[in-house]
C-alpha cells in the first residue's frame, strides 16, 4: 500500500479525522474540569450570598495588586502557548521550544507570586485551621471565605503544576523532534493550558474584587 503518515493511528482513516477526534476528546475532558471546579463555585455562590459583608471584608485582605499581576502573567502565558502551537503547526522547532520555555517561565512566575501571597497570608494569620485569627464577629464565616480562597486557588495551582510538569516533558520531546511529524499533542496541551487560565480569569474577580 502507499505510505501513510506514521502519526496516524491504525484505527483512523486520515489525519483530519484523528485531529478532530483529539480536539473533541480534549474538550470533553475540559467539560469535566468545568464541573470539577464548578462544585467549588457552587459552594462559593451559596456562602457568598449568605455572608456578603464578611466575604467582602475577607476579600480586602487579599493582595489585589499581586492577583492582578498574576492574571496578567497567565494571560501572557496563554499568548505564548498559542504562539507555541502555531510554531508547531509550522514545524518551526526553535520557535516552538522558545515559546514553550517562555510559558514555563511565566507559569513558574505565577506560582512564585502565588506562593508569596500564601506566605504573606500565613504571616497575617489568615490560614484556616492553622493560624486563622479574625478581629470582630463572624470569625467562622470569614474563615469560610478563606477556606474557599485557599481551596480554589490551591486546586488551580495544582492544575498549573501539572501543566508545567507536562510542558517540561514536552519541551524535551520537542527538542528531540517528536512534534515534527505530529503537532497534535501541542495543540491538545494548549487547550488544557488555556482552560486553566480561564479558571483563574474567574477566580480573580470572585476572590479578590468582592465589593470593593
Amino acid at each position, binding site marked *: 500500500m502507499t505510505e501513510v503518515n506514521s502519526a496516524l493511528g491504525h*484505527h483512523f482513516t486520515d489525519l483530519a479525522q484523528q485531529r478532530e477526534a483529539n480536539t473533541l*476528546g480534549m474538550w*470533553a475532558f475540559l467539560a469535566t474540569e468545568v*464541573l470539577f471546579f464548578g*462544585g467549588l463555585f457552587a459552594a462559593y455562590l451559596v456562602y457568598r450570598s449568605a455572608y456578603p459583608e464578611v466575604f467582602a471584608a475577607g476579600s480586602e485582605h487579599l493582595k489585589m495588586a499581586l492577583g492582578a499581576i498574576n492574571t496578567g502573567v497567565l494571560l501572557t502565558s496563554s499568548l505564548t502557548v498559542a504562539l507555541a502551537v502555531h510554531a508547531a503547526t509550522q514545524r518551526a522547532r526553535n520557535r516552538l521550544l522558545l515559546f514553550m520555555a517562555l510559558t514555563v517561565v511565566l507559569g513558574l512566575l505565577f506560582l512564585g507570586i502565588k506562593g508569596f501571597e500564601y506566605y504573606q497570608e500565613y504571616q497575617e494569620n489568615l490560614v*484556616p*485551621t492553622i493560624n486563622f485569627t479574625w478581629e470582630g464577629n463572624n470569625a467562622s*464565616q470569614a474563615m469560610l471565605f478563606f477556606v474557599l480562597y485557599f*481551596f480554589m486557588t490551591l486546586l488551580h495551582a495544582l492544575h498549573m503544576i501539572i501543566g508545567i510538569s507536562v510542558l517540561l516533558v514536552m519541551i524535551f520531546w520537542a527538542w528531540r523532534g517528536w512534534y515534527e511529524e505530529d503537532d497534535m499533542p501541542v495543540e491538545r496541551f494548549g487547550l488544557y493550558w488555556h482552560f486553566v487560565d480561564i479558571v483563574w480569569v474567574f477566580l480573580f474577580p470572585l476572590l479578590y474584587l468582592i465589593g470593593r
Partner: protein
Amino acid sequence: MAVTTPTLHLRESYLGISHTAKSWLLTTDHKRIGLLYFVTITLFFFIGGVAATMMRLELLTPAGDLLLAEGYNKLFTMHGTIMVWFFLVPSIPTTLGNFLVPLMLGARDMAFPRLNLASWYVLIFGSLFSVGSLVVGGVDTGWTFYTPYSTTYSNSYVIAMAVGIMITGFSSIFTAINIIITTHKLRAPGLTWFRLPLFIWSLYATSLIIVLATPVLAVTLLLVAAERTLGIGIFDPALGGDPLLFQHLFWFYSHPAVYIMILPGMGVVSELITCFARKPPFGYKFIAFSSLAIAIFGFLVWGHHMFVSGQSVYAGLVFSLLSFMVAIPSAIKVFNWTATLHKGSISWQTPMLYALGFIGLFTIGGLTGLFVATLPIDVQVHDTYFVVAHFHYIMVGGMVMAYLGGIHFWWPKITGRLYPEGWGKAAAILIFIGFNFTFFPQFLLGYNGMPRRIHEYPPEYQVLNVFSTAGASILAAGYLLPLFYLAWSTRYGEIAGDNPWGATGLEWQTSSPPPKENFVEVPVVHNDPYRYELTGEIDPHATVTVDDLRKSHPPNIPTHHATAHKEGRDD
C-alpha cells in the same frame, strides 16, 4: 443456505493471537480490555453480594444477634459503595460497551485505545483504596456519606474510601470520553446517526452523564476529606457551613448516576427485544431521543432525595415536578418495547427471558419511583424499605438482568461458543423468582414503617423479612449458576457461528470471536438497522457464515469495500 460445521477461528481471533500475560495486561485492544473489566467487576459483584448475604442473614431475626450495629452499618456501606461504584456504574459500559462499541460502529478500535487501558488501571488503583478501607476496618456512613456524620463523627475509614471512589471516577470519565468521541468520529461509511443501534444511543447518553456529573462527585469527596482532616467548616453549621450543601453536591452526581446505571441496560433491552421478536423497534427515533432526554432531565431532579432533609418546600415542589417529568422518556421506552413485541415472532431464548423480566420489573420499579417522587408519600416512606425496594427493582430487577441478558446474547460473539441454553433458562427463571421473593416483601415492609439501615427491628416485621432472606438465597443460587456454566462453555460449549441469533448489527457481520482488527475490510452501511423482515427464524445451531448471508440477503449485509471514508462521519 449452506450448513457447515463451524470451525473455531480461535487462533486468528483477538483471543488466540497471543497468550502472554503481557499481551493481556498491556493490550490496547478494546475487546481484551472489555474482558479485563468483565473479570474485575464480576469479582466486585460477588464482594458486594457477600455483604448483602450477611445483611439478609442478620435480618432473619428481629434481634441484632449476628452482628453489632456498627458491623451492620459497615456492611450496608460496603454493599452500597461496591455495588454502585465498582459494579453497576462500570458494568455495561466497560464490558459490553468496550467490546461492542467499535464493532457496532464498524470501527477498528476505540478513538483512544491507550486511554482505554489506562481507565482499567485507574479502576484497579482506585479499588485498592476503597476495598482497602473495607479490609482495614470498614466505613459506616452508608454509601451516601452524609455530613456531618461522615465529616465529624464517624470513626471509620471514610477518607480512604472517598479517595478510592474519586480515583475510580476518573476511570469512568475516560471510558465515557472514548465512547463519545468514537461515536462521533469513527462510524463506518454510511452509518449515520439514525442508523445507529439503540445500544449505541444509550451508551452515548450514559457517557454524557458520566462526563458532566462525575467531576462534581470528585470535588465533593475532596471537600469531605478536607473537612474531616482539617475541620474547614464547609459543611459544619457551627462554623457557618451547611450540611445540606453536601447533599446538593452529592446528589447532583448521584441522581444522574442512577441513569448512568440503567441507561446501558435499556440499550441492551432494545437490542434483545428486536432480535427475539424479529421486528424493528417501534418508534426508533423516540427510543433514541428518550435516552438523551433521560440524560438531560436526570440532571434536574436530584432534590427528590432531599425532600425531608431541610431543603425548602419550594425547591421540593420544583424537584418533585421535574421528577414526574423524567419518568416520561422511560415510559416511552417501555411502551415502545411492548409495541415492538406486539405481532412479533417471539423466541424464548435466555436473553429474551432477561429482557422480558427487565421490562416487567423495571416498570414496577419505575412506577414506585413516582410514588416516592410524590412529596407527601415520600415524607412517609423516605428512609424505609419502600425506597430500598424501589431502587433494587430498577437496579437488580432491571439493570442486572439486562446485564446478564446482554452477556448471554453476545457471549457467542465474545467467546465463539454458545452457552448451554437449558442452564441459561434455568438461571434466568431462578433469578426472576428469587428476585421477586427478595424485594417485593420490602415494599410492604417499608410501607408499614420498617426503616432501612437497621440491623434489629420490631418482631411484627419478621415474617416478611424471612421471606425476603429466603428469596435472597434463591437469587444467590441463580447468580452462581452463570458463573459456572459460562466458564464451562468457554472450553466445552458448542461452537457458535458468526451470527447464531441471525441478528442485525455490524458486530454480527464479522467472525465469532472477531479478529483483532475487528473486520477484514471496513464495512460500508447502506441500510437502516433492524431489518429483521429480511432475516429468518432464529436457530443458533445452524451455521451461517457471512458469505452465506451475503448471498441470501444482499440488502441487509454491508458490502465490504474500503471506499471513500468521508461519508457517515458528518456529525
